[in-house]
């Protein structure tokens, strides 16, 4: 069928440009944007075929389909809350998976080296440890809220809060809290190593520090993207 061929100049200039105008404004993870693009492309081509079957020329059908689908800005904006929720949920799942792993790595480093918390002492740089607890106390509820708002509960939560911005906002807060926790842990262990030279079992420390550095990079980037999505939705 003629309507299937995107290499046709009429389609390339019309439908493909329309599709590009929509997808260029979509937030969220690349895989989710590709899925939306594929779905819209199928709908556009199906609409083209429908109009041509009714007797429209290709030019008429293309114009009719673009008018039928609506303004690209409006369509992209309508996808924003859904793609923002997908993005937030992925960030939350990532933090929920990595959180215990990073935590266990630090616990192992503390236990193996019999560092002050293992001896029930909060002295020197370890006095900053409550800041880690505070960050985790923020991250936990933020993650719970992200998972709830980006899933089935989102429809109900939307009756009392801004359904669109809640998931990316909560995910960004959780990501930033994770960054604070990791930076604090890295600062503590660095200060401890500098002020209390001795023989360390370095392997677990290096593993824990590496895990935190990796998570800082990923969580900071995820939080920045969630905040950008939130800004686009407001």
């Amino acid at each position, binding site marked *: *069928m003629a309507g*299937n061929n995107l290499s046709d100049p009429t389609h390339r200039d019309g439908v493909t440009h329309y599709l590009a105008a*929509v997808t260029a404004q979509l937030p969220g993870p690349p895989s989710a944007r590709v*899925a*939306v693009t*594929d*779905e*819209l*492309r*199928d*709908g556009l*081509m*199906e*609409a083209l075929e*429908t109009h041509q079957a009714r007797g429209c020329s290709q030019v008429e059908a293309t114009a009719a389909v673009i008018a*039928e*689908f*609506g*303004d*690209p800005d*409006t*369509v992209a904006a*309508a*996808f924003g*809350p*859904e793609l923002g*929720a997908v993005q937030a949920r992925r960030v939350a799942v990532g933090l929920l998976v990595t959180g215990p792993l990073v935590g266990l790595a630090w616990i192992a480093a503390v236990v193996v080296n019999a560092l002050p918390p293992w001896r029930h002492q909060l002295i020197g740089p370890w006095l900053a440890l409550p800041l880690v607890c505070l960050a985790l106390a923020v991250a936990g509820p933020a993650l719970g809220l992200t998972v709830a708002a*980006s*899933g*089935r509960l*989102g*429809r109900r939560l939307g009756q009392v809060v801004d359904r669109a911005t809640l998931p990316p906002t909560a995910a960004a807060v959780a990501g930033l809290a994770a960054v604070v926790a990791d930076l604090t842990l890295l600062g503590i262990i660095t200060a401890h190593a500098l002020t209390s030279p001795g023989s360390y079992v370095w392997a677990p420390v290096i593993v824990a520090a590496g895990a935190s550095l990796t998570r800082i990079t990923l969580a900071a980037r995820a939080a920045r993207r969630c905040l950008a999505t939130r800004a686009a939705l407001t």
Partner: protein
Amino acid sequence: MLPMRAEVLKGHLDGLLLATLADGPRHGYAIKEALRLGSGGQFDLPTGTVYPALHRLERAGLIRGSWSTVNGRRRRSYELTAAGRRTLSDERSSWQEFSAAVTALLGNSPWPATT
């Protein structure tokens, strides 16, 4: 007869979208066309905004999407979940009660006497 604007459907769109899937799976454009044809052309929504509404219903667990390949392109079709069927049943019941009450009030029947 001019098609109704999308705002008029606010509050009813979810139920209408679920109703289009009552008889089996459809893809996005087929759902939009079912709404248009089923309403006699009254509900002619911007097609591009139907898709996000479907994604919202899928996230709510009311419909389930699946991919297939048709004519060499990827197609996403939707079907009702068990929760979606329950919600559709609730929407139908509440609409029948609501429309019966509005019909009673806006119809030409005499108003009851009040003090």
